[in-house]
């Protein structure tokens, strides 16, 4: 870190960079589609509506799968699943990560050292591997275990970031002043620490959201995610790979949906970072 002065400041007006706009549009599109599937889908997602493995047509924009179900409908539902996994996993990661990170920052030297070392070890394990172990540990794969596993796996990263950010704030003179004037540690967290670290945390949550979407797709691809009939993008891709010789188009559309959401989230996070951290200009 070259910038010695922490760049924590109240949020300035939202600067609408093109990257931020594109990101927000992509994410917004997925949210709208995901919400829409709650009340309407082009076809019944479980009904056989056309020929098996039919190529894309006007009636079936993304073709049909091996049971003749409309792929576009399944991809739309996949958006809902991806978003709910992302929201759930990030909420879990935030709850555990911020709590542990704050505890470590406030704890005595010895406790902090142990926590930091444990976090480093957990982070050295790839998120996906950790999630795989947790899914395996719970009986049977389901959407819930996938969310839980990804959330727990991501929480170590959030915890480490929170710890570093909180320690930086705690080293400030105004914290000493607050302590001297009798503010308890909960008060310090609420009044000084959280308002100062949340802009950076939010940016990280947006990035974690994207990683969670990829992790969920990977778990489903490996058969460790939500079981059918949940139309996760990862499972759609896995099924498409099985029929790649007869119907190669099936692998395209779910992938595009997945990547557009992740890119949208990354751009969105970049845009937020520009706002949250004015000293860090994009090059």
């Amino acid at each position, binding site marked *: 870190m070259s910038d010695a002065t922490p760049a924590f400041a109240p949020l300035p007006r939202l600067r609408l960079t093109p990257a931020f706009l594109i990101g927000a549009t992509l994410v917004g599109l997925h949210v709208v589609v995901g919400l829409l599937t709650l009340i309407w889908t082009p076809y019944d997602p479980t009904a056989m509506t056309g020929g098996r493995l039919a190529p894309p047509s006007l009636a079936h924009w993304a073709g049909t799968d091996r049971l003749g179900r409309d792929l576009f409908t399944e991809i739309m539902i996949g958006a809902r699943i991806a978003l709910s996994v992302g929201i759930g996993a990030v909420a879990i990661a935030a709850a555990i990560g911020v709590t542990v990170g704050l505890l470590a920052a406030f704890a005595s030297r010895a406790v902090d050292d142990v926590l930091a070392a444990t976090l480093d070890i957990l982070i050295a394990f*790839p998120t996906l*591997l950790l999630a795989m172990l947790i899914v395996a540990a719970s009986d049977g794969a389901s959407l819930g275990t996938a969310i839980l596993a990804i959330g727990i796996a991501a929480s170590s990263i959030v915890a480490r970031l929170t710890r570093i950010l909180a320690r930086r704030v705690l080293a400030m003179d105004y914290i000493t002043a607050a302590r001297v004037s009798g503010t308890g540690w909960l008060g310090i967290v609420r009044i000084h620490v959280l308002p100062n670290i949340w802009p950076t945390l939010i940016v990280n949550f947006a990035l974690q959201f994207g990683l969670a979407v990829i992790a969920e*797709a990977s778990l489903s691809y490996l058969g460790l995610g939500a079981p059918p009939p949940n139309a996760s993008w990862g499972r759609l891709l896995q099924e498409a790979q099985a029929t790649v010789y007869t119907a190669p188009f099936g692998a395209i559309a779910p992938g595009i949906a997945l990547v557009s959401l992740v890119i949208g989230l990354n751009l969105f996070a970049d845009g937020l970072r520009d706002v949250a951290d004015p000293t860090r200009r994009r090059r």
Partner: protein
Amino acid sequence: MLIAAAVLFLLLRLLPGDPANALVSVGADPEQIEAARRQVGSDLPIFAQFVRYLGQLASFDLGASFVSGVPVLEEIGRRLTLTLPLTALAFTGAILIALPLGILAAVKRDRWYGSLISVISQLGVAIPVFWIGILLVTAFAVKLRLFPSSGFPTSGWWRDPLAALHQLALPILTIALVMSASLIRYVRSATLDVIGSDYLRTARALGAGYGEALVRHGIRNGAVPVISILGIELASTLLGAVVVERVFSLPGLGSMLLSGIEQRDYPSVQGVLFISTLLVLLVGFAADLVQRLVDPRLRGPSGARP
């Protein structure tokens, strides 16, 4: 290392279901189950199991698979002959792609192709490994029929190395592409740091050409942060091979881990994770050594960064 071993052990014991179940058939009577439990040691208290496990680790005895009965270390050794070359080749490929493109993206950042490289690498970071794998299969195996879509010769490397390499072409390309996408970003920002540095301006002022200054002064300075990233990337590729091996159904370390988890084969899972952790630590150590080799300032007694 000890902490890592303990974390692994605990995580695995949290898996519900007795590993002895893998040994007995459905409907076995209690006596048979008890015998099986004694055989795998799951009748001992958990602490005794842990002490036994540590003792075995110390003597590099990783136990035998609950399922097949083959010693785990032997199985890992066999599978490493696939996973290690796969990772190494993909790693080399990624460096060959990322170094020139990353430097180009930084030096020519005002040109259209400079930004194009940045945009593509941004895209690459958002694409899951397995989708790239599937797309490559669609393009090169289904459409062009240049490479096989999956599998590996059972005879291994030595019978026909070229055929083996041909089989591995798509997996190698998949990993190399994914790795290079994030690598390009690091190389680019390291190069940008070098370009903005005072010493480069001094070198230019002393009459060195742009390219010469960059090569003579830039590479060593820019390499240090990139090497530590390379170490991390190599380690995560080794562990991340799980997904790629599934895409191309390769009999490597990753598929051993997956089937181990599915069958609750603790010795296999523990063994794979233990050896992978060992490899990851070794890679980190090697990256550290290389950094010191490149940058004499890191060789001081404290090893402190300048």
